[in-house]
C-alpha cells in the first residue's frame, strides 16, 4: 500500500476491515475477466469512450511551436474524467453487495459522477459537500438531487472539500457495513489511490495508443493538471516507462509566494491527510491549511500519494499555474479551438501554451483536457464580466 514512503492507511481502526474487504474484492475483480469486460463495456456504451484525441491545429498554428493534442475527457458522460472512476467503483461496490454509495465532492463533479452511476446501478447515493460549496454550486447540487442522490451540506471546518471528505469518512466509519465509500480522486487510504489510478489509466492507455497511431511516435511532453491528481495519474501511468516528459500542473492561485494557492507538491510538506501520507499544505504545528484556487477541482490541500512519489523520484515534474494564467489559457483555447475547457484543465493548457512556444514544430505536447468548462461559466462570468458587455 505504499508508493515509496507515501501512501498507507492512516484511518481509524474501525475502517481497517472495510479497506481489507475492498482490497480483497479488487483482487478478485482483477482475476475476473468479466469484471474488466463489464467496466470497458460501460465506459464505451454508457460514457462514450474512447474519448477523442483532438489535434489543436488552430491553437498550434497560432503559437507556432509544438503540435498540441488534447485528450478529450470533457466528452465523457457528465463532462469529465470522473465518471471513469465512478463506473469502476460502482462495479466493485455491486460486486461487494453494497447498494449504498457515499461520496464527497467539492465543486460537485465527482458528486454528479457518483450520483450518476448510482442511478444507473439502482443504488442509493449520499454525497457530502461543504455548505459553502453547496451554495456556490447550486446547479450541481440540483443535478445530484435530480439524479436521486441525497446531498448533505457539511458545516464543519471551513465547509469545503476537505471538510466534506472528513465528514464522508466519518459517515463511512459509522456505516461501513453496508455502504461503499466512492472516493473521487487518487487520494485516501490504500487501496484507493491505486484503485482510482487503475480506473483512470484508461485515459493514458487510450491516449498513448491514439497518439502512436496518429503520429507514429510518442509525444515529447504530456501535461495534466493536479488537484488530488486522478486525471494526471490516469494520463501519466501508461507513459511512465516511455521517454516522455511528464508535467503535472498544480494551482498557484494568486501566486505560490502568497498564502492563496493549492500548490501542494510545489509548496507543501510531508504529512498525513485523509488516510494517506503525502505532501500537504499545513502549518508548522501540523494543522492543515485551507488551500485556494479559482478552480474548485484543484482546491485541495493534499495530493495523491503516488504523485508525491513521482515527485520524489523526479519522474514527473510538478509546476504551477496561477488563476490568471489559467483564465487566459481558457479563453485562448476557447477562441482558437472552440472548446471551453474546465478551469482545472485550463491549468494544464496554460503550461502547454507556455511550453509549446519554445518547442519546435516537430515536437508535440499531449494535454489531458480533463473536463468541460460549462460548469465554470458562472465563475467565468464573474471574473471576466467585461466580455459580456
Amino acid at each position: 500500500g505504499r508508493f515509496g514512503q507515501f501512501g498507507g492507511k492512516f484511518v481509524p481502526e474501525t475502517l481497517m476491515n472495510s479497506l481489507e474487504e475492498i482490497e480483497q474484492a479488487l483482487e478478485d475483480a482483477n482475476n475476473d475477466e468479466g469484471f474488466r469486460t463489464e467496466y470497458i463495456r460501460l465506459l464505451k456504451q454508457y460514457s462514450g469512450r474512447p474519448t477523442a484525441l483532438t489535434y489543436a491545429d488552430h491553437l498550434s498554428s497560432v503559437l507556432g511551436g509544438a503540435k498540441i493534442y488534447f485528450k478529450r475527457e470533457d466528452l465523457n458522460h457528465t463532462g469529465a474524467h470522473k465518471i471513469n472512476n465512478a463506473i469502476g467503483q460502482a462495479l466493485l461496490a455491486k460486486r461487494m453487495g453494497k447498494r449504498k454509495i457515499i461520496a464527497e465532492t467539492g465543486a460537485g463533479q465527482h458528486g454528479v459522477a457518483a450520483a450518476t452511476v448510482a442511478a444507473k446501478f439502482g443504488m442509493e447515493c449520499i454525497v457530502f459537500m461543504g455548505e459553502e460549496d453547496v451554495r456556490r454550486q447550486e446547479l450541481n447540487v440540483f443535478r445530484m438531487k435530480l439524479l436521486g442522490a441525497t446531498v448533505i451540506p457539511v458545516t464543519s471546518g471551513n465547509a469545503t472539500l476537505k471538510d466534506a471528505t472528513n465528514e464522508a469518512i466519518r459517515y463511512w466509519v459509522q456505516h461501513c457495513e453496508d455502504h461503499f465509500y466512492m472516493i473521487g480522486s487518487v487520494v485516501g487510504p490504500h487501496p484507493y489511490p491505486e484503485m482510482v489510478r487503475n480506473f483512470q489509466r484508461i485515459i493514458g492507455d487510450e491516449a498513448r495508443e491514439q497518439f502512436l497511431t496518429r503520429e507514429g511516435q510518442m509525444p515529447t511532453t504530456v501535461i495534466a493538471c493536479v488537484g488530488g491528481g486522478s486525471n494526471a495519474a490516469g494520463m501519466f501511468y501508461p507513459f511512465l516507462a516511455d521517454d516522455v516528459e511528464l508535467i503535472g500542473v498544480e494551482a498557484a492561485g494568486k501566486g505560490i509566494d502568497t498564502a492563496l494557492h493549492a500548490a501542494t507538491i510545489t509548496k507543501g510538506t510531508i504529512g498525513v491527510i485523509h488516510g494517506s501520507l503525502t505532501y500537504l499544505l499545513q502549518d508548522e504545528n501540523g494543522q492543515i491549511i485551507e488551500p485556494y484556487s479559482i478552480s474548485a477541482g484543484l482546491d485541495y490541500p493534499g495530493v495523491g500519494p503516488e504523485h508525491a512519489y513521482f515527485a520524489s523520484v523526479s519522474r514527473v515534474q510538478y509546476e504551477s499555474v496561477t488563476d490568471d494564467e489559467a483564465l487566459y489559457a481558457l479563453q485562448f483555447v476557447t477562441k482558437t479551438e472552440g472548446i471551453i475547457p474546465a478551469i482545472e484543465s485550463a491549468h494544464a493548457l496554460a503550461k502547454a501554451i507556455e511550453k509549446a512556444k519554445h518547442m519546435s514544430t516537430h515536437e508535440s505536447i499531449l494535454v489531458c483536457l480533463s473536463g468541460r468548462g460549462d460548469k465554470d461559466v458562472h465563475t467565468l462570468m464573474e471574473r471576466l464580466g467585461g466580455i459580456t458587455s
Partner: protein
Amino acid sequence: MNTPLKRTIPKQQFLFIPFIMAGFPDEEITIELALSLQELGASAIELGVPYSDPLADGPVIQQAASKSLKSGMTIQRAMELVGKMRKKGVEIPVILFTYYNPVLQLEEKSFFALMHQNDIDGLLIPDLPHEESQHMRKRCKQEKIMYISLVAPTSDTRIEQIATGAEGFLYCVSSLGVTGVRNELHKDIISFLATVKRHSPIPIAVGFGISSDTQVKELMPLCDGVIVGSALLKKIGELEDLLLNPKTKDQAVYEFKQFVLSIVTPISS
C-alpha cells in the same frame, strides 16, 4: 534524559477515563477540569490535542477542537499543558490523544522529549491503526510511554493481533463510528467485548458514545472500564461562558462535577 517511574493504569478497579480537550475552553480551566476529574476518581485522563481535520471525531469534539485551535493551541502547548497540570497536582496518568499529523511534524526526538518533560504517560493516535503504528509502538516501548491501541467491532480477526502487545488499556470502540453521544449500544457489543476480553492481557475500556449511568451500568459486567468524551465536552460547551467568567467559574465547575458524578455513579457505588 532519564524518565521517572511511570504511572500505570490501575488493574483492580473499574476504569473511568475521561476525555477533555486541551485549551477548551481555555488552558486554566482545562487544568481545573483535570483536577476535578482526578478528584472524582478518574483512573486516567485522555487529553485531546485539537486538530484541524479530526476525522474520527463527532461534531462535539470537532467544535471543541476548532475553538481551541482558534485560541492558538498547538500539540506542543497541549503537551506543556500536562506539565502545568502536574504542577497543579494532577497525579493520575495522562494520555495524549492526538491525530498523527501533528505528531509527524515534530521531530521524533523532540516529541518524546516533550512527552517526558511534561510527564505524559500515554499516547493514543486514532488515525494510526495497527499496521501503520509499528514504529511508533516500538519507540513508545523504548521510551516507556503507553501506546494505547483501539479495537472496533469490525476489527474481527485483527482483535487478537492488536490485543497482543497492547499497553495500558485496550480501547474498545463501542459502536461503529466516530466519537459522539449515542443512546444505544451496538447490538453485537456483548460478543465483541467478550472476544476482546478473551484476547486482551490488559484491561479493556469501552469508549465512543457513553453518556449515561445506564450505559455504564450495562457495560460494567462486560469490560474493565469506560471512556467518556463527547458527553463531557458537550457539558463543558454548555458551561463555557460560566467557566470563563471568574464570578461563575466555581459554580460551573461544581455543575460539571455533578454531571460527571451522574454518569459514573454505578462505578463509585
